[in-house]
Structure formats: structure tokens, C-alpha cells
């Protein structure tokens, strides 16, 4: 009964979405107010029904209803409860339902927080989002019904893929999808602006907080995914340039460009067409990412149940949504005026350069991701290649290094017109300090390549330039330093925090890349191996049982200066239902570095092959991402957005007295 309610709720949501995607839009074009007014209640209704559907699915998983095919394939009665709930988005069908849930959540948020928008704008925005929702609800109902029944019911489920049985996997998809789908708001605002012919600073101000919010979620989502891969794949890596990872990284790069270009459009009125195009591209890449993951056209370590028929559906959907948006852009963009002027040395020009570099970087990632597919297509399926991390590193580092360098200059440069001598006077000490630090640090820590020096230089450079920025910023204010600091708007602090996050991230990536050590060793009970100033002693394995697996549980004692400091328990699990083997690494996390031990395979009765890593500063990678996301959140809480919205309410009241 519950699954049927879920199915019915989805059908009702689809009907509401169809009305929402058409009537308010037509109403806005023709000035029919009653039709426009429909958009908000329709969005609320849609959210309600999609939420009901999702709860029904979660309920089926929680109660292990093995008459539902999806539950049989992805759950098991012995699976712990929190993983049973997470399993409801572990499958293809469930994850698309989660996508739709997130979309209706964003729609509801727009409808609640943007009440003060002009009637036409709100109607158009919600309508465009409604159309996207129609596509995905149809996709769910026609090709990937999460509530499909199995008759007769199975006695037991096949269990959730053991790789997904990790806290990271519980949080990763919802966060990532919040980010992906969040860009649909920026997209809807862009389309609404193109339709209404009103593309100005006000438009940028409206869509800015939404874009920042989506960007924060995407940042967190990618971060959790990377952390999951580090913990769960047992290879000690944090980023593999896997097609599925790239699929989430491309919208992030374009989204980052969009966040910055929106700032310019809001403050200076410049880059209007460019910003609109970026908003379209960010969401298009989110959709493309969904397509790449769900259609199976690319091979990846993430093996989802893939299906060419579903792929074709998403492809047609992509063609309509992205193709339509880009055509609309081609039709309307010539009528948009360029906006504020600026000199070739100015904050605008630095931000433009940052945008170009980010987009080119995203383009090179896209090229590397799709090249195997292109070559396969051109050769008629005869040439198979793979593009690995070396390609991405060789292209990405040279493109991002100047971008990061400009990140130090842009925030201190003046709008409209700046001069190089002035910038040099401001930043020369920051430049010299970071250069000296980049040379000195490797002398102390030993060894070091040019890559290490470059990475350290960039990290120190952002740090030093940020200090200069803060000093310059508060110079013209009065009072004690802390008062002057407290006077600065949160949006500005958000920017500072996010930029510092980039510095922390770069430091982490550089130091891990240079100083990490890895060894695969054969260890009998009592054997030791030394690494990073620590001695690892293998104390054998014992049998252990979990709720749905059996495991060989190793004990590795870590000694420092002859004293026992830590005991690690890596496991080799075998999951009962699927018979799959899984390596569960044991990791000791520290600010200065991680110790990482995983079990390979038993060699004989006494010994195992064991993999030991020392990863200095690896947590800095994720801490940097957290800082970036926190920066975004801080910017969101800026008073400006709240003040503006009340001011808009008044303005709206003046415009429409009737």
C-alpha cells in the first residue's frame, strides 16, 4: 500500500509540475495575474507530494519491504537502520527521486524567500523550475520507477553495495544534489531575465544568494565524496579524476566563475551577457553530469546500474533544456547592453581573467573526460583509450596557478581603474615574503621539487595578500582594530574566509603530494615497518563479526620513540549477502598528518600483505574546502540581502498599488 501511495504522489506531483511549467509562464507573457499567482501554491503542492513519495520510499526501505524491487536490490534486513535509510538514495531510482526532492525543495525555498520579487519574475522563475521538474518526474515514472513491485516478494534483499556502507555515503549524495540542483535556481533566474528582457544589477542581486548557497552545497558535497573515497576505497587517494568526480567538478568550476561574475554584474553592471551564459552553463553541466553518471557512456570506478534507454531519455531532455536555453540566449543576448565600463587594469579585468581561466579549466576537464568517448565514436568502437590523472594534472596546474596568483591581486585592486605601480606598492612585501617562504620551507623540510615551491608560494601568497587586503580595508575606518574589523560586512568576511580556504587547500595538496610515503609490505606477527618517524608493529588478526559482515580484524600498534602511542584496527570484511570483499582502512587523523593502514590479503597463516601510508597535512585538503563553504555561508548571512529584501518589498508595494 505504502509504495502505491508513493507512486500516486509522484503522478500528482507531475500533474502539478505540468501546470506550473506552463500557466504562470504564459500568464507572465500575457499579463494574466491570476495565472501568475498560481506559481507559489503549485510549488508548495509539488514539494508536498514529492516529499510524500520520498517518505514512502524511505519507509519501504526502513521496514525492509521486500515486495519492492528497489528494496530487494539495495537493502537487506541485516543492514543497520541508518544505512537502510541511506539505501533509499543508493540506487539509481532512489537517487533520481532525491534529485526531484531537492529540486522541489529549492522551488519551495524560492517561493518562500523571494516573495518580494516582482510578480512576473517570480512566476517565470518558478515556471522554468517547474519545467525542469516535469522532465525529471517523467524520467522517474517512465524509466526508473522506484516503487516497482516484485511478485512474489523476495525473502531477503541483496544488500546495499558495501562500498556505500559508510557515513560519508549517507551525506554525500544529498549534499552534492543540493548543489547540482541549486544551480537550477540561477538557471531559472537567467531564463526568466532573458524572457522578460530585464537583465540588470537587480537581477544579479536576486540570483546571487541562491547561487552562493548552491555553490556551498556543491563544495561540501564534493568534499564529502573525496573524503569518502579516501576512507573507503582503501587506496589512500583523495581525488582520482574519475569521470564521475569530474562530472561534479565541472559545475563547481563554472559555478565558482558564476559567483564571481555575478558580483561584478551586481556591483558594476558589467559582464551581463557573460553572467547569463555562465548561469546556463553551470546548470547544463550539472545535467550533463547526471547524464554521464546515469547513462553509462563513460566507464568509471563508480559502477552504477546503467542503462542506455535511460541515457537516451536524459539526452533528449538535455537537448531540450540546454539547447532551448542557449537558443534563447542567442536570440536575446544581442539586445542586452554591455553595462559598466572598465579599464584593462581594474578589479573587473582581474575577475574577468579569473573567469576565463576557470572556464578554460572546466573546458579542459570536459575534454579529458569526453575524449575517450569521442575517439571511440570516431573509430567506430575500435580504439579504446583512457585519460588518467597525469593528463588532468598536466593541464590543470598551469591553468589554475595564474588564476590563484590573480586571486591575491583582484580583491585589493580598485573597481573600474587601477594601476600597476599602485598594486605593486601595495603587494610587494606580500610577494617578497611568500617568495622567500617558498624557498626557505623546502630547505628546512628537506628535498622538494619546483612543484612544491610553486604550491607553497601560491599558498603563502594568498595568505599574505589577504593580510594586505584586510589592512587596506580597515584603514579608512576609525576605532580600535577589533572594532574596525567587526564593522566589515559579512559578505566581505565570507570572501576572505573562502580565499584563505583555497590557501589551506593548496598547502594540503602540495605537501601531501610531495611528502607522502606509501609502502606495501609483507608482515608476520611482530614484524615492524618504519615510516614518517613512526614504527608500525603488526600484532596479527582476529575474527570479528559485524551486523551484516564477517571480518579479519588486524591490530597494528604504532610506536614513537619506543613508546606505544596508538593502536589501529584495519579490517578485511566479507559482506554476507553479496559475498563482496571490502578493505576497511584504519586511519589516525591529525592536524599535521594521517597514519593510514589497510590490510591487503593473507599470505599464509601468520602473515598478511599490509599497506601503510603516512600522509602529512592531508586533512588540510578537506579543511580548506570546509573554509570555502563556510565563507559562502557567511556571505549568505550578510545583512545586505535582508535589508534589500525589505526595501524591495516597499518598492514592490509602490509599483503595484492595485
Amino acid at each position, binding site marked *: 500500500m505504502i509504495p502505491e501511495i508513493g507512486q500516486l504522489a509522484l503522478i500528482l506531483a507531475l500533474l502539478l509540475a505540468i501546470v506550473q511549467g506552463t500557466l504562470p509562464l504564459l500568464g507572465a507573457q500575457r499579463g494574466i495575474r491570476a495565472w501568475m499567482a498560481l506559481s507559489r501554491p503549485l510549488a508548495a503542492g509539488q514539494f508536498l507530494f514529492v516529499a510524500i513519495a520520498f517518505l514512502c520510499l524511505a519507509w519501504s526501505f526502513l521496514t525492509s519491504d521486500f515486495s519492492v524491487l528497489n528494496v530487494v536490490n539495495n537493502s537487506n534486513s541485516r543492514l543497520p537502520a541508518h544505512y537502510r535509510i541511506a539505501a533509499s538514495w543508493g540506487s539509481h531510482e532512489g537517487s533520481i527521486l532525491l534529485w526531484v526532492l531537492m529540486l522541489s525543495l529549492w522551488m519551495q525555498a524560492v517561493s518562500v524567500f523571494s516573495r518580494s520579487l516582482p510578480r512576473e519574475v517570480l512566476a517565470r522563475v518558478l515556471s522554468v523550475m517547474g519545467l525542469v521538474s516535469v522532465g525529471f518526474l517523467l524520467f522517474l515514472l517512465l524509466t526508473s520507477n522506484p516503487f516497482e513491485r516484485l511478485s512474489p516478494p523476495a525473502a531477503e534483499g541483496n544488500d546495499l553495495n558495501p562500498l556505500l556502507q559508510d557515513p560519508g555515503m549517507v551525506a554525500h549524495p544529498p549534499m552534492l544534489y543540493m548543489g547540482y540542483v541549486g544551480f537550477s535556481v540561477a538557471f531559472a533566474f537567467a531564463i526568466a531575465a532573458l524572457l522578460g528582457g530585464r537583465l540588470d544589477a537587480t537581477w544579479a542581486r536576486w540570483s546571487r544568494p541562491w547561487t552562493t548557497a548552491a555553490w556551498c552545497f556543491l563544495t561540501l558535497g564534493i568534499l564529502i565524496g573525496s573524503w569518502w573515497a579516501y576512507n573507503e576505497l582503501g587506496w589512500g587517494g583523495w581525488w582520482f579524476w574519475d569521470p564521475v568526480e569530474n562530472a561534479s567538478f565541472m559545475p563547481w568550476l563554472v559555478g565558482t566563475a558564476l559567483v564571481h561574475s555575478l558580483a561584478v554584474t551586481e556591483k558594476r553592471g558589467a559582464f551581463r551577457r557573460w553572467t547569463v551564459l555562465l548561469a546556463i552553463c553551470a546548470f547544463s553541466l550539472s545535467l550533463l553530469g547526471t547524464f554521464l553518471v546515469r547513462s553509462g557512456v563513460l*566507464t568509471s570506478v563508480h559502477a552504477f546500474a546503467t542503462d542506455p534507454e535511460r541515457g537516451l531519455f536524459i*539526452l533528449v531532455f538535455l537537448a531540450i533544456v540546454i539547447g532551448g536555453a542557449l537558443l534563447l540566449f542567442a536570440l536575446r543576448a544581442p539586445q542586452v547592453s554591455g553595462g559598466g565600463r572598465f579599464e584593462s587594469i581594474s578589479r573587473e579585468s582581474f575577475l574577468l581573467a579569473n573567469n576565463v581561466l576557470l572556464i578554460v579549466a572546466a573546458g579542459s576537464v570536459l575534454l579529458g573526460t569526453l575524449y575517450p*568517448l569521442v575517439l571511440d565514436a570516431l573509430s567506430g568502437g575500435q580504439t579504446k583509450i583512457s585519460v588518467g590523472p597525469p593528463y588532468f594534472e598536466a593541464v590543470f596546474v598551469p591553468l589554475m596557478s595564474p588564476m590563484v596568483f590573480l586571486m591575491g591581486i583582484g580583491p585589493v585592486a580598485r573597481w573600474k581603474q587601477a594601476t600597476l605601480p599602485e598594486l605593486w606598492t601595495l603587494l610587494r612585501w606580500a610577494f617578497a615574503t611568500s617568495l622567500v617562504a617558498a624557498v626557505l620551507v623546502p630547505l628546512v623540510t628537506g628535498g622538494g621539487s619546483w612543484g612544491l615551491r610553486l604550491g607553497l608560494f601560491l599558498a603563502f601568497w594568498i595568505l599574505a595578500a589577504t593580510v594586505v587586503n584586510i589592512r587596506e580595508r580597515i584603514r579608512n575606518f576609525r576605532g580600535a582594530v577589533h572594532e574596525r574589523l567587526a564593522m566589515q560586512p559579512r559578505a566581505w568576511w565570507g570572501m576572505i574566509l573562502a580565499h584563505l580556504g583555497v590557501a589551506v587547500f593548496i598547502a594540503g595538496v602540495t605537501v601531501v603530494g610531495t611528502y607522502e610515503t606509501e609502502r606495501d609490505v609483507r608482515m608476520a606477527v611482530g614484524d615492524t615497518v618504519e615510516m614518517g618517524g613512526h614504527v608500525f608493529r603488526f600484532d596479527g588478526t582476529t575474527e570479528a563479526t559485524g551486523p551484516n559482515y564477517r571480518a579479519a580484524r588486524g591490530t597494528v600498534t604504532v610506536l614513537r620513540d619506543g613508546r606505544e602511542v596508538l593502536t589501529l584496527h584495519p579490517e578485511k570484511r566479507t559482506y554476507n549477502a553479496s559475498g563482496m570483499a571490502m578493505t576497511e582502512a584504519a586511519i589516525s587523523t591529525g592536524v599535521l598528518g594521517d597514519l593510514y593502514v589497510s590490510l591487503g590479503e593473507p599470505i599464509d597463516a601468520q602473515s598478511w600483505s599490509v599497506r601503510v601510508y603516512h600522509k602529512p597535512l592531508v586533512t588540510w585538503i578537506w579543511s580548506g574546502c570546509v573554509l570555502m563553504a563556510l565563507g559562502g555561508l557567511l556571505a549568505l548571512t550578510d545583512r545586505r540581502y535582508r535589508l534589500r529584501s525589505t526595501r524591495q518589498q516597499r518598492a514592490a508595494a509602490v509599483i503595484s498599488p492595485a
Partner: protein
Amino acid sequence: MSRFLLPFGVFLVLLGFLFVGLKLNPREVPSPLIGKPVPEFTLPQLHEPAKAFSPQSMRGRVWLLNVWASWCVSCRDEHPLLVDFAKNHQVAIVGLNYKDKPDDAQAWLAQLGDPYTLSVSDLEGRVGIDFGVYGVPETFVIDKQGVIRYKQIGAVTVDALQGKILPLIRELDQG
């Protein structure tokens, strides 16, 4: 106007490649076995290991060979369809039990129903290799002359059954 069409143009090219890419799906490779005689083998039957089975004995009949295993997730998806098919049609289905433990396999059939005329045990997967099996389940349609006419990679779906397999069987039966 024309320069604003550039993003649209780039997108069209991308779309073209994605479309071709869909058709190139690595799991949709046409089997080199289609139109070729079914590989010869002799394997013990699952329920009566003393008895052997060889495709030779199926000459003159249209039959299905379904590769399955009790450890295989997708087999569970297609199984109800096969059981249903066996009930309503007079076509023989031979199960090639691929790299399975005979005890597990028998328990699985006892629980979910046995659509097979008979099953044979390919304990080490040797015969599977001859059939170019690269994933379980797979299903072959074999004609009266012992020639493979169709191969379904992955689970049999209602669409594949109604749209391809059944019409083909009807056609072959008449021929």
C-alpha cells in the same frame, strides 16, 4: 547574433558525440557468436549430476540458453519473467548455471521457482568463455539447426521478451 549562437553550436557538436556514445555502450557489443553454430560442450546436469547434457540433443527444436547464477543480482530481476514464460510457452529453456555452488543453485531454484527444462553446471566457467559470456545473466536464442540467432546481455526485460525474443521464436518455429 551569430557570435551568440556559438555556445549553441558547441553544444550541438557535444550532443552529437553523446548520442553516438550512447549507441557505443560497451555492454551492447553485438556478439560475434550470432549466426554461428552454438559451441559444443558436455556438462553434468544440475539436479542429476550423473546425467550429461550437450546442445546436440536439442537439434530440431528452438530453445533458449539462459546463463544464471545464484550469486547474481540481476538474475533475481529477470527470474519472475522466466518463470512466467516457462508457464505459458512450450519453448525449452536450458539454464547454464555459471560458476555457482550446486547446493546454492538448487536452493535458489527451490525458493524462486524453476523455469528451466534442465540446468547444467558450469562450475569453472569454461563453457561460459566459449559463449563469450562477460556478465551474468545472458540469454541466447538458438534455432533448430543449432545456430545462435540472438543474444540478450543483462537481464531479460519485458520489452526484450515481447519485442524481440518472442517474435523471433515464432519466426524460427515456422522456418
